[in-house]
């Protein structure tokens, strides 16, 4: 039965169901709507966070546009195509990650970029998409829930790139990538006993993690635990971002009127700490609206994943959606002081190039899964 479905040509879409003009775009209307609202909201906040610099807004909008193009292209491709290319892409990505460690460029003691003439990019961003595709591809072809052996192999697939990225070092990204792989495993239906077992092992392994962390990473954790210990240095960011969010209150100080952000007390106010600007200027109401949009995107993503008709589509869509939430949670958690500071941007709101394109590409995967579902008849 499955075999038959898989080999069904997609040349007769009209047979599947009656379709409107919009369906030819293969874009999911709801998801697109939420994304556009989020982008617009993000640009509004960025304008204020950059101190009213239209240049930032335009550059960010251009990136969003580029991201939407990538998303649209991805939406046109069949999920099977991604599955087919996943192993090759995975190997290439690992090669790029190794290259970063050897010949990469970067700043502030971290080596994250590969520079090509007139162009530079972070291979880790590619891995964000490739890893869930790879793990999903591997598991989708096996009986689920996966056996212990398959779980171990999946974990190895996850572990290798995560370690390479940690080495750069980029704790935030390696965390996101690890999450994206692990979500595939979790969604694949692995037994709860494995999940709880893994949690227990992880708890036991924390001291070991501490041993391998770099000094600046340890510093971040220590600062997180007690920001007042270094109020002018590492603790400054957290103290200031908490003051920004808290002083905003319920209604906020008004757009462009945040004193913390407009007077430069808030560091990185237009990148990782942009939620503090929103909290200060637009208040709790503003953040709740943002969380509302995020929740709709996540809900829509999970709906798409649930409706997917093969394991690969389900696992990829589910992982992409949940990883998106990890961005949101880790970013807001660190800025509001309940998580240590790791470099995770607020998706589609923080200023910054690569992550926007990667995120949009992820939405493209979701839409691909959604759009090519109809071709399968029951």
């Amino acid at each position, binding site marked *: 039965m499955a*075999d038959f479905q898989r080999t069904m040509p997609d040349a007769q879409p009209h047979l599947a169901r009656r379709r409107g003009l919009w369906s030819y775009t293969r874009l999911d209307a709801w998801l697109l709507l939420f994304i556009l609202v989020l982008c617009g909201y993000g640009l509004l906040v960025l304008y204020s966070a950059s101190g009213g610099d239209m240049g930032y807004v335009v550059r960010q909008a251009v990136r969003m546009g580029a991201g939407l193009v990538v998303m649209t292209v991805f939406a046109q491709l069949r999920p099977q195509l991604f599955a087919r290319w996943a192993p090759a892409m995975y190997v290439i990505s690992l090669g790029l990650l190794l290259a970063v460690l050897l010949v990469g460029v970067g700043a502030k003691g971290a080596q994250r970029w590969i520079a090509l003439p007139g162009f530079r990019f972070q291979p880790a961003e590619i891995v964000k998409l490739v890893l869930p595709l790879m793990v999903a591809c591997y598991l989708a*072809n096996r009986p689920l829930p996966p056996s212990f052996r398959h779980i171990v192999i999946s974990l190895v697939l996850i572990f290798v790139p995560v370690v390479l990225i940690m080495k750069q070092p980029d704790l935030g990204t390696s965390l996101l990538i690890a999450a994206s792989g692990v979500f595939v495993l979790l969604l694949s239906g692995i037994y709860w006993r494995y999940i709880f077992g893994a949690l227990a092992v992880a708890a036991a392994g924390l001291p070991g993690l501490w041993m391998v962390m770099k000094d600046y990473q340890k510093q971040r954790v220590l600062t997180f635990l007690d920001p007042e210990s270094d109020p002018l240095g590492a603790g400054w960011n957290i103290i200031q971002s908490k003051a920004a969010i808290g002083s905003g*209150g319920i209604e906020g100080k008004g757009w462009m009127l945040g004193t913390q952000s407009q*007077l430069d007390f808030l560091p990185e106010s237009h990148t990782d700490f942009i939620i503090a600007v929103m909290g200060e200027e637009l208040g709790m109401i503003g953040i709740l609206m943002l969380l509302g949009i995020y929740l709709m995107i996540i809900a829509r993503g999970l709906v798409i994943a649930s409706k997917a008709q093969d394991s690969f589509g389900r696992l990829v869509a589910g992982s992409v959606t949940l990883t998106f939430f990890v961005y949101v949670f880790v970013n807001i958690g660190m800025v509001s002081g309940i998580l240590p500071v790791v470099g995770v941007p607020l998706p589609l709101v923080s200023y910054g190039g690569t992550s926007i394109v990667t995120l949009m590409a992820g939405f493209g995967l979701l839409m691909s899964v959604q759009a090519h579902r109809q071709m399968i008849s029951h």
Partner: protein
Amino acid sequence: MSAFDSLKDHTKEGRVFLSRALIAFVIVVLLMGVLIGRLYYLQVIQHDQLAAVSDDNRIQLQPVAPTRGLIYDRNGTLLADNRPSYSVTLLKEKVGDLEATLTELQKLIPISERELESFHRRLKQRRRPYETVPLRFRLTDDEIARIAVNYQRLPGVQVEADLIRYYPFGASLVHALGYVGRINEKELKRVDPKNYSATHYIGKLGIERFYEPLLHGEVGYHKVETNARGRVMRVLEQTDPVPGKDIVLYLDIRLQQAAEKLVEGRRAAIVAIDPKTGGILALVSNPGYDPNLFVTGISTKDYKALRESPDLPLFNRALRGQYPPGSTIKPMVAMGVIDSGVVSPTHTIFDPGFYTLTSGGRRYRDWKHGGHGTVGLDMAIYQSCDVWFYDVANRAGVDIISDYLGRFGFGQVTSLDLPEALPGILPSKAWKKKTGRGSWFAGDTLNLSIGQGWMLATPLQLATAAEVMANRGEWKQPRMLKGVMKHNKHKADKLTEGSVVDISGLEGTKAVLPDIKLKNNQYWKRIIDAMIAVVHGPRGTARKIGHGLDFQIAGKTGTAQVVGIKQDEVYDADSMAERHRDHALFIAFAPADNPEIAVSVIVENGGGGSSTAAPIARDVIDAFMQLKRQDSEVDELAGVAKDG
């Protein structure tokens, strides 16, 4: 592939996924709840505290130092001014390599170890990043230029301006005005820290110290919004500082300078008081020193030079020089014995040149070998006969003499606003016992009656006694402050006459002594006539200064045996010889019938009062009368100009 596929149960996998997705969604919602809970905690529960943190960040209360009040003399001449001074500050965040910058600056301008030390201390005490820290104060124009030229190479280095005190008359007035200096920790504890939060200088001595509360003013505030770099973005509110009051002294700088000139090169003090007000017209202690050195912190070398000078320039002779008054107190002693009824004003003795308490006992000598012969009260004063005083003192006893001298202000500080003034010593039985010098002897009384022995008095006290004598017993408390300028207009003629300044709370305020009421008011004339005879009588001890006057001077000479202020200097024959000479003293007031000036003069090791001190007093009185004539001519001219 198909082999694997055949093993898969797609329906079951879909069900499992759906349940996992639902669980995931529930967890997502729960974690969102955690975030919302955190936001609620920050934005609702902690809102007030965090809003305060945010306001503390951006809003700063910058204290603004008030401008110190100026000091004028009675004619509106500026005696203490404020001038801009420049300091160099560092902004650590912009500096980069701090040590290298400091080394570089040291090549450009001299920076002492002490300055470096306090710089590092201030650097540690910064309240936030991007706060500038001062390194060195009072740069010269040359140093400013050298720093300015090198600004490019010295990022974060800045020159900032401040106002500091300047005394245009320098050494002439240091003993009359005192000076301000950089405020130290001990002084900061004494003053209101809020009001002095921006103040760098405080009155250390004299008028500057006494009238500190008037001169300082009230601190102002700028409530400013700054960015994280400490740059002021805008002033939200400002409370301007209230400048210190400009004060006017009774002092006449012209008389002061004339008097100073009369004792040039000598160790001497002159105090002149206006008897009608108690206002101090001149207060000279020579030598002086430049107070401007102290304002900005004197160098160790300069200070050592001042401290080790044998002429003791740091020593305020007028207020703190306690000398045996010698015969200058004889008119007051005479007043005491006749007013108390111990002897009659016509009491006469025979002076053989000495006095003995008991027949054949110790001889108390008269200054005149062979004696004055028959001596009454008048002659005892104008000839300064010691034996007459020994006789009456022995009859009166110490209590009466001490009592009457006390009424003239001896033995206590009676001046209003000269915080450094010393009380001198007025001996009495109680005093001698209290200070462990044993019981009182009759001989002590004899010595006291001619201003020798235990008694010590300052030039200010002698001038005060002369003033009270001139006023026929009416006490006008000696004081420097004439008034406070209204509206701070920088013109003395805007002074509101009689403007009352409440100084009752000020440190050092002394109670005014009661006027001296005599049993017989005629005695004032008796004593003053005798004092006039000192100058104008054919045999007066100061008759040499009594010529060419259209008014009368009442005076009294004095010569004090040297106990010496300091005898342990390096041995130097000439110097030692000079310093063994007697101190010359003279007190006077004029015109005798309607006194306008009371003067005391002391010249250390000056020899005799009549030969050295009296001519100086005469010249001071002349200068005073000359200035008075000049001023009235100017007033007349001004009046004519107005009428015309």
